[in-house]
C-alpha cells in the first residue's frame, strides 16, 4: 500500500477512472451503487435533521452529512460477516453496511419497530445478528470491545476482521493506547479507522492533540498507519480493502486515518461558534465527497444528469417511506420497560 496523494483520483481521465476501478476490483455497477449509497446517507441525515426540526425526535442525534465517503468506502471494502464497531456518528456506516433505513428511522423516532425497539435511539443502533455491534455513545467505546472481538475471531480461527471506527476525539482517550497496544502484541485482525472530521465537538483537533496526524501514533505500536483523503471514496475503499486483507491474512492490525468534515453541528445543541462559515462552505463545495465522486463518475460516463436525478428520486422516495414506516409504527409498550435488562 503506497501513501495517499491528495486528488489522486479526482483528476483522472475517463479511461483512467475505469482502469483504476478495475484495479480496485470494482465493477461499474458497484461504482454507481457506491454513489447511490452516498446519496442515500446524505438524504437520511437531512431527513433526520428535518424530523428533529419538526419536533418529532425525543433525543439527540449526531449527523454524518459530509462524511459519506468514509462510510461508503469502508463499508464496501469489507466483507459481509466482518464485524463492525461504530462511533456515535454512525448512521452513514450503518446504511453503508446494508441496514434497513425503515428500522433505522423507526429507532430514531423511538418506535418499537426500530432496530433496538426504541431502547437505543440514534446513538445505539445495532444489528448484532448482522455482526454490527453497534454505534457507541462513549467516545472510544468500540476500541475496547474490538480487542475482544478480535480475540474471538483469532480463537475461532475464522477469516473475519473487525472494523472499528472512531473519531479524532477518541484518539485522545486512554483506551486508544490500551487497545492499539493489545492488538499489536497479539496480531489481532483489527482495522482501526480513525474518522477525523477536524473537531471533537468544538475542539479543533490540532488544538487538543499534541501531534497530528494520528496515524503517526500507530507507528508507536508498530502498526502500519496511513493518512488518507476521507472525502475521496475510492481512496477510502482502496486503503480499507488493502488494510482489511492485511488484517485478514494474520499480519495484525492496520490503522487508517481518513480526513473528512461534518456539515451539521456536533449535536442538536451546536451553534457552530467554533468554525467559520467560509470553512464550512469550502468543504461543502470544493471538498464535498458526493460532488467529487459524481464528477468522477460523469468523467467515466457512468452517470449523467438523467441517471443522477433518477438515483436521487429513488433514494428520496426510500427515505420518505422510512419516515412513513416509522410514523405508522407503534410506540414500545411501557409495561415492557424492564425487559431485556438481563438475558
Amino acid at each position, binding site marked *: 500500500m503506497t501513501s495517499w496523494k491528495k486528488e489522486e483520483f479526482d483528476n483522472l481521465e475517463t479511461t483512467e477512472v475505469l482502469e483504476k476501478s478495475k484495479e480496485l476490483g470494482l465493477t461499474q455497477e458497484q461504482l454507481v451503487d457506491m454513489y447511490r449509497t452516498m446519496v442515500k446517507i446524505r438524504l437520511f441525515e437531512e431527513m433526520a435533521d428535518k424530523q428533529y426540526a419538526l419536533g418529532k425526535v425525543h433525543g439527540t442525534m449526531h449527523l454524518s452529512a459530509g462524511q459519506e465517503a468514509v462510510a461508503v468506502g469502508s463499508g464496501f471494502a469489507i466483507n459481509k460477516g466482518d*464485524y463492525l*464497531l461504530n462511533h456515535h456518528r454512525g448512521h452513514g456506516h450503518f446504511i453503508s453496511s446494508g441496514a434497513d433505513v425503515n428500522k433505522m428511522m423507526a429507532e430514531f423516532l423511538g418506535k418499537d419497530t*426500530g*432496530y*433496538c*425497539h*426504541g*431502547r*437505543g435511539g440514534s446513538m*445505539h443502533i*445495532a*444489528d*448484532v*445478528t448482522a*455482526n454490527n*455491534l*453497534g454505534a*457507541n*455513545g*462513549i467516545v472510544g*467505546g468500540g*476500541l*475496547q*470491545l*474490538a*480487542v*475482544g*472481538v*478480535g*480475540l*474471538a*475471531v*483469532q*480463537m*475461532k480461527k475464522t477469516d473475519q476482521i473487525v472494523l472499528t471506527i472512531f473519531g479524532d476525539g477518541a484518539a485522545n482517550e*486512554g*483506551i486508544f493506547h*490500551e*487497545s492499539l*497496544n*493489545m492488538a499489536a*502484541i497479539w496480531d489481532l485482525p483489527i482495522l482501526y479507522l480513525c474518522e477525523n472530521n477536524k473537531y471533537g465537538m468544538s475542539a479543533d483537533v490540532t488544538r487538543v492533540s499534541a501531534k497530528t496526524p494520528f496515524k503517526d501514533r500507530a507507528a508507536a505500536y508498530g502498526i502500519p498507519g496511513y493518512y488518507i483523503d476521507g472525502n475521496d471514496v475510492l481512496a477510502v475503499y482502496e486503503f480499507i480493502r488493502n488494510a482489511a486483507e492485511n488484517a485478514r491474512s494474520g499480519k495484525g492490525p492496520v490503522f487508517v486515518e481518513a480526513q473528512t468534515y461534518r456539515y451539521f453541528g456536533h449535536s442538536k445543541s451546536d451553534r457552530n461558534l467554533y468554525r467559520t462559515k467560509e470553512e464550512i462552505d469550502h468543504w461543502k463545495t470544493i471538498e464535498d465527497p458526493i460532488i467529487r465522486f459524481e464528477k468522477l463518475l460523469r468523467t467515466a460516463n457512468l452517470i449523467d444528469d438523467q441517471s443522477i436525478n433518477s438515483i436521487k428520486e429513488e433514494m428520496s422516495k426510500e427515505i420518505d417511506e422510512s419516515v412513513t414506516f416509522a410514523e405508522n409504527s407503534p410506540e414500545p409498550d411501557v409495561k415492557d420497560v424492564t*425487559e*431485556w*435488562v*438481563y*438475558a
Partner: protein
Amino acid sequence: MPEITYREAIHDAMVEEMRRDENVFLIGEDIGTYGGAFGVSAGMLAEFGPERVRETPISELAIVGAAAGAAMVGMKPIAELMFMDFVLLALEPLMNQAAKARYMFGGKATVPMVVRLPGGSGTGAAAQHSQSLESMLMNIPGIKVIAPSTAYDAKGLLLSAIRDPNPVCFVEHKLLYKVKGEVPEDEYTIPLGVADIKHPGEDITVVTSGIMVQKSLAVASKLSQEGISVEVLDLRTLRPMDEQAIIKSVKKTGRLLVVHEAVQTGGWAGEVMAVVSSSEAFDYLDAPMRRLAGKDVPIPYNRFLEAAAVPQEADIEAEIRAIVSNKY
C-alpha cells in the same frame, strides 16, 4: 468429601469449565507463569496455553472491554482483575458497555462474562488494594454480583456465573483464599440469586455475605452456648437479592442485623432493610433493624486501624447482644 481451599475451588471451577467448554477463556494480568497474584490460576497456562490463559498488559479498561467484546460474539470470558480496587479503572466497559448492551440493542445481544474481583481488607494492603466495592457494583442494572463465603459455594457459584448469559461480578475475599471446606468431586452448581441459611436460629437474623459469613458463624456458635439462637443468612448473590429468603427469616426471628465489609453509606445493608420494611416481615419485627458495616473511611495501613475499619467478631457479637436484649 474432600476438603479444598476457597482458592482451589475457584481454580477447579475455571479449569473444569474450560475443559468442558472451548469458548471459556481466562484473561488478566500475570495469570500465566506467575499463576495470578493470589495463585488462583496456577498451572492453567500449562494445560490450556497462552491463547486461553490470555495474559495481558496492565490495562484493566481493555481487559474488561475485551471480555465484553468477546462475550458479545459468542465467547465466555473470565476476566481476572488483580485487585477489586482496579475495577474502578474498568467501570466504563463494565457499566456502559457490558451491562447495557443487551438493553440498548433491544434484547439482541448477550454478554456472558465473569469479572473476578479479589477484594476486601485484612492483608495490610491499605486504601487502594483493600476495598469492598460490591455495593457500588450492585447499583448497575444488567450486572449480577456474587460474593461467596465458602469453598463449596465459590465453586458452585462460579460455574453458574460462567454459564450465566449475563455479566457477573464475582467477588472473592482475599482472606478466604486459604480457608478450607468440603467440596464434592462430582460436578454441581449453585443457582444465582438463592441465599443459604448457614446457621439456623430463632432469635435474630444476621444477613451477610463473603467473609462476614465466617465471622458471623463464629459468633453464632459462641452465642448458642448462652442460649442466643442466631440465624446466619448468607445471601451469596447480592444482585439479584433473594428477597424471599430475607423476609422468611425475619418473619421467623423478628430481629435483623445486616453485616457487610463494604462501607456503610450507600451500602447494601440499606437495601436489605428496605426489603424488610416494605414487606410483611416488617410487622414481625420486635426490635429496630440494625446494620454493621465498614466504617466510612479508606482502609488504613496499620493493622489495628485496619481491623477497626471493618466489622470484627467482637463487633458482631456486641450488636447481636444489644439487639436481642433491646439495648441498642
